[in-house]
């Protein structure tokens, strides 16, 4: 028997397999395999293989584009969007188009070729998260941009084209559709109830306790009631915060702890699966959106998305979040 659940924010329905949930071992993924590090453009000594760095955290007295860095940001060599130029919107009959202005940066998370965030030490993870903040704040000054998206693809099946671990940042001249849906949904709720839907959602999770994996002073990690993917996890600040980029140093160290724990549990329980994570944050177009609440969505790529999902926007989730959480909690770390 399955159950249909509706996401209260964007209105998406998902189909959840209640009676016959898939177990972690039923998914044929992983473990992650790293290719040989020779010729890896993200390793120490190969800095010349990337475009010149935009920013890096590095040891004192080391020069830009040489070894000695801890986190390094470079422009994407094959950018989906280009930074130079003015936005040129135009019509073509019934179609709308614009040139592809934007920023596309790669955040090389670590000098180690074969370590993911789950394998790093807390101070190392803090530096990555801090770099996300710094790049976001820097790009927010560019008035052409309306939205900044930070995301990570881990493993080929999740879309990563290089093995050495990295995340990406894309600054866009418009608010993308999925984000707009989330903003509209939470905005409507706020208008009617004068409360943030994400804060309400957290209250319900605290009360039901069924889907919470772990929490600390500032953050909570849980399986959402309406996931799109089996073992999907959300990390959310407990306080009502609009922008990821305004995360304080103290909060960053709490976020590093919870992110490491979640990724490590996932890695062990699911045999090091490919995954994506995305930071959902408020747009930088200057408009006030008091009903929004930034958060991070982590999606292991365990199942294939087929015609039905494409056609309907319905997702089929073979493991209910209430079951997934038990496996993740059961992992010894």
């Amino acid at each position, binding site marked *: 028997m399955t159950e249909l659940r509706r996401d209260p924010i964007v209105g998406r329905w998902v189909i959840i397999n209640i009676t016959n949930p898939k177990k972690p071992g039923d998914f044929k993924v992983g473990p992650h395999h790293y290719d040989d590090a020779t010729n890896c453009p993200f390793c120490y000594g190969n800095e010349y293989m990337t475009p010149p760095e935009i920013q890096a955290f590095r040891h004192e007295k080391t020069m830009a584009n040489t070894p000695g860095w801890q986190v390094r940001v470079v422009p994407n060599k094959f950018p989906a969007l280009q930074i130079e130029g003015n936005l040129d919107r135009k019509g073509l009959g019934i179609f709308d188009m614009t040139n592809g202005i934007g920023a596309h940066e790669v955040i090389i998370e670590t000098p180690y070729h074969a370590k993911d965030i789950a394998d790093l030490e807390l101070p190392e993870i803090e530096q990555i998260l801090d770099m996300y903040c710094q790049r976001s704040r820097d790009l927010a000054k560019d008035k052409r941009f309306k939205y900044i998206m930070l995301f990570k693809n881990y493993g080929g099946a999740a879309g990563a084209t290089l093995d050495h671990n990295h995340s990406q940042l894309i600054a866009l001249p418009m608010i993308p559709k999925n984000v707009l849906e989330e903003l509209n949904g939470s905005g409507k709720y706020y208008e009617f109830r004068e409360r943030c839907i994400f804060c309400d959602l957290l209250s319900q999770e605290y009360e039901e306790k069924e889907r919470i994996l772990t929490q600390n002073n500032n953050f909570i990690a849980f399986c959402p009631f309406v996931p799109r993917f089996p073992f999907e996890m959300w990390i959310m600040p407990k306080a009502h915060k609009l922008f990821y980029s305004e995360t304080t140093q103290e909060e960053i160290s709490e976020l590093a702890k919870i992110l490491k724990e979640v990724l490590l549990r996932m890695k062990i329980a699911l045999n090091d699966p490919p995954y*994506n994570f995305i930071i959902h944050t408020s747009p930088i177009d200057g408009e006030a959106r008091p009903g929004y609440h930034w958060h991070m969505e982590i999606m292991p790529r365990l199942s294939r998305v087929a015609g039905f999902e494409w056609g309907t926007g319905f997702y089929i989730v073979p493991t209910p979040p209430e079951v997934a959480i038990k496996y993740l909690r059961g992992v010894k770390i």
Partner: protein
Amino acid sequence: MPELRKDPIIGRWVIIAVERARRPKGFKTAFSIQDEGECPFCEGKEAHTPPEIFAIRKEGTKPNQPGWDTRVVPSKTPFLRVEGELNRHGQGLYDVMGGIGAHEIIIETPRHIANIADLDEAQIAKVITCCIDRFVDLSHDERFKYMLVFKNYGWDSGGGRVKHSRTQLIATPVTPKRVKEELLGAKKYYNYHERCIFCDLIRQEIKSKDRIVFEADDFVAMTAFASRSPFETWILPKQHSCDFSSMSVECRLHLGKMLKKVLTKIKIGLDDPPYNYILHTAPFRKKISKAGYWKTIEDDYHWHLEIMPRLTNPAGFEWGTGFYICPIAPEGSAKYLREVEV
């Protein structure tokens, strides 16, 4: 310079990133999975499927026996089940209901053929007839609002391990989100212009020719202006119609011919890639006219088929934004497909 394009119907932006372009052969393709055991969909194996719901078969043959051309059976592993009540209820912030629906498989040929492109047009027309028959039948069920017809071909498209050509259909108790977006987009355009946006789109495309793949009889195939994946191709009837089930027998043959042409071009030109296609048609109208919404649907919506070769792997960016990055300009892919000799 990459270019951003907006789908005029639902407002989705895509990035046409020609600098990232790879040649058609550079995508990962093919159907590498071997059949596991015996195929349950071949003629003579009727006992291996649940009992058939509908079949086009030779006179004098019995259900669940050989002698059929196309055959519809319930899915053995359905996402949604046909028995039971909807039982809509709330749980705090959330809405929940029972997983009620129909999930059926249309076996497109009695022979062990993987790709519908390799069937003849008359056989494909029979598949279309099966879809129409099931559509009409399921539309009588008061619990259902929509029926999605789709195909997953090849492992990377979500297809099964058995290399026997089939289409799936799923009737759902709610109108799915993506479908609703498209209906709303078309309706908004109609409210303002009093014209169907798809008819306008067809007129513009036929005039410009840049994205036309093939045009014949009463159908046109073109690559989408704001393609989500390289070589995304739409097939539309030139005559305005919101509902595919109203297709005449002659029209079904023409669609069969068109589908065969386009899918064969894709198969030859792109080295037999995995693909999905999805039929976009109006929701069950008996139900909606009762509820009083979508009043203008017969004028504002236009059914069509969207074919998506699965050549790229949507990653974090696509999931997060609903933006797609398409590494080949649709004009280039249309030209390429036009030149593939079939």
